[in-house]
């Protein structure tokens, strides 16, 4: 049962990562491929600070601040380069951050990682068990979802979506494209770092192998499979893509091939889903009719 709670908490955390990426990539069409790095930065921040005696919640706030500030490392170049090059730059950033985490052994413990991370303590309650931690993520994830949804449905979010659709058209009607993009990345990556700060207390241990390019691709897949531009989709995507590898562990196979076959099936599953749902599982275009009717009916 503890195992189920573990998977459940992972689903919640990765759902947040997917939702954050969706705001940047799905809405704003900004080609950012380095979620795992900000995830890791948040994780290391919280791990190191709690080990230094801090309470958990302030460490999450620090992680958010660090995530927002560091997002400018990729958002400022993002304003100057073509979409394709931004993808390359962010992939490079991901690799760079991983190497930094790997080699700054004195701080991050390198591939040995950081151990004995204290459990979260809030309002005097110690979140020691898998169940309590899972319930905590079950509160955290919806809060993040609602925050991102609020942003996405606000005037800012609508403008961001327009920018994602046609940047030149958006500029010609007075949208400050640069500012919108910087804000999108600051919001998305700071919440990603917040999820990371929570993640570092899932087990008492983290290491850099959780923050590789492979992990970023997982977040990307969650967003795509769920449906780009659809926040609920990222939740569905996280549920499927986090639980699938776990479910496959129960399919009996000779251990020498099990891992590889699981990866094969996982990849196949993604391909099949996208063949059946080209725009993602929840990626159907929202009919304008309903939206406009609601809008025009609003105050007449």
């Amino acid at each position: 049962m503890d195992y189920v709670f573990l998977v459940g908490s992972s689903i919640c955390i990765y759902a947040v990562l997917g939702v954050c990426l969706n705001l940047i990539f799905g809405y704003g069409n900004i080609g950012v491929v380095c979620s795992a790095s900000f995830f890791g930065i948040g994780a290391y921040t919280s791990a190191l600070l709690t080990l230094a005696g801090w309470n958990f919640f302030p460490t999450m706030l620090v992680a958010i601040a660090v995530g927002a500030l560091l997002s400018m490392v990729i958002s400022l170049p993002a304003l100057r380069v073509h979409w394709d090059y931004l993808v390359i730059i962010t992939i490079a950033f991901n690799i760079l951050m991983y190497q930094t985490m790997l080699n700054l052994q004195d701080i991050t413990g390198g591939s040995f990682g950081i151990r004995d991370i204290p459990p979260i303590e809030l309002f005097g309650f110690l979140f020691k068990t898998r169940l309590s931690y899972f319930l905590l993520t079950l509160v955290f994830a919806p809060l993040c979802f609602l925050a991102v949804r609020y942003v996405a449905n606000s005037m800012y979010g609508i403008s961001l979506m327009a920018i994602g659709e046609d940047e030149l058209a958006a500029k010609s009607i007075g949208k400050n494209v640069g500012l919108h993009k910087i804000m999108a990345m600051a919001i998305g990556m700071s919440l990603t770092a917040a999820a990371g700060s929570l993640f570092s207390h899932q087990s008492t241990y983290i290491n850099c192998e959780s923050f590789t390019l492979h992990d970023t691709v997982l977040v990307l897949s969650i967003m795509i499979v769920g449906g780009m531009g659809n926040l609920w989709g990222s939740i569905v995507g996280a549920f499927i893509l986090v639980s699938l590898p776990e479910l496959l562990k129960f399919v009996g196979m000779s251990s020498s091939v099990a891992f590889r076959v699981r990866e094969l099936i996982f990849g196949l599953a993604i391909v099949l889903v996208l063949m059946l749902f080209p725009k993602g599982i929840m990626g159907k275009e929202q009919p304008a009719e309903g939206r406009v009717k609601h809008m025009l009916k609003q105050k007449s």
Partner: protein
Amino acid sequence: MPLLQTVDLTKSFGGIRAVERLSLSLGDSQITGLIGPNGAGKSTVFNLITGFLPPDAGRVLFNSKDITRHSPHKLVELGLARCWQGVRLFNNLAAIENVAMAVKRPSKGGRFSGLIIGWTPISGFSREIIEKARHYIEMVGLAGKSRDVVADLSFAERKLVSIAMLLATEAKLLLLDEPASGLDAKSLTRTMFPLLFKLAEAGRTLFLVEHNIELVKECCKKVFFMHHGALLAEGTPEEITRDSELKQIYFGT
């Protein structure tokens, strides 16, 4: 004082001189045309004026204010807006939503006020914005199609939406890139010509890049003729179209 002035505007792409020391000025509340053969540099001039391309040299003055190298969104706020040849719209949104996106927001102080005001819990657009959008859609004659997704509209209708969006910005100076292209004769005379006149009468200043000589003769008070990046002539449409040298450049004989 002319509303818009360019002073020795110059732009090269590699070895190609796209715009060569171009100086022109536009009068208030008039319709002015910019014509010339393909490759003359007309669209480049538009991009230089509206901040989509930085000039190599020269200045652009709007209301006597130096706006060279200002970003496009800042220019829209100052009252200078452009639309695109071939029409750029937000395809998955309805016509009224497109126009609502362009409606000028009240700027209550500070660069970040727009962001803060934008975070209202009301989903999407406020009542005032929707009303204004409706007004502009009616002004271009698309009231019946305001709920249609623009991807489903005809090309002429899409053009009208983009003009409605321009109007919504409340910009004083509107730059229209080939408003006649793709329109049949009926749409031109029944819809586009009257619309352009209506805009000028309402106090907007229009600057058009055009290939359609009929529109230029019918609507423009003054015309600039460009060739190989330089301003060759300026005058009334009659003067320009009568000139034999220009005729040879443009039409070949």
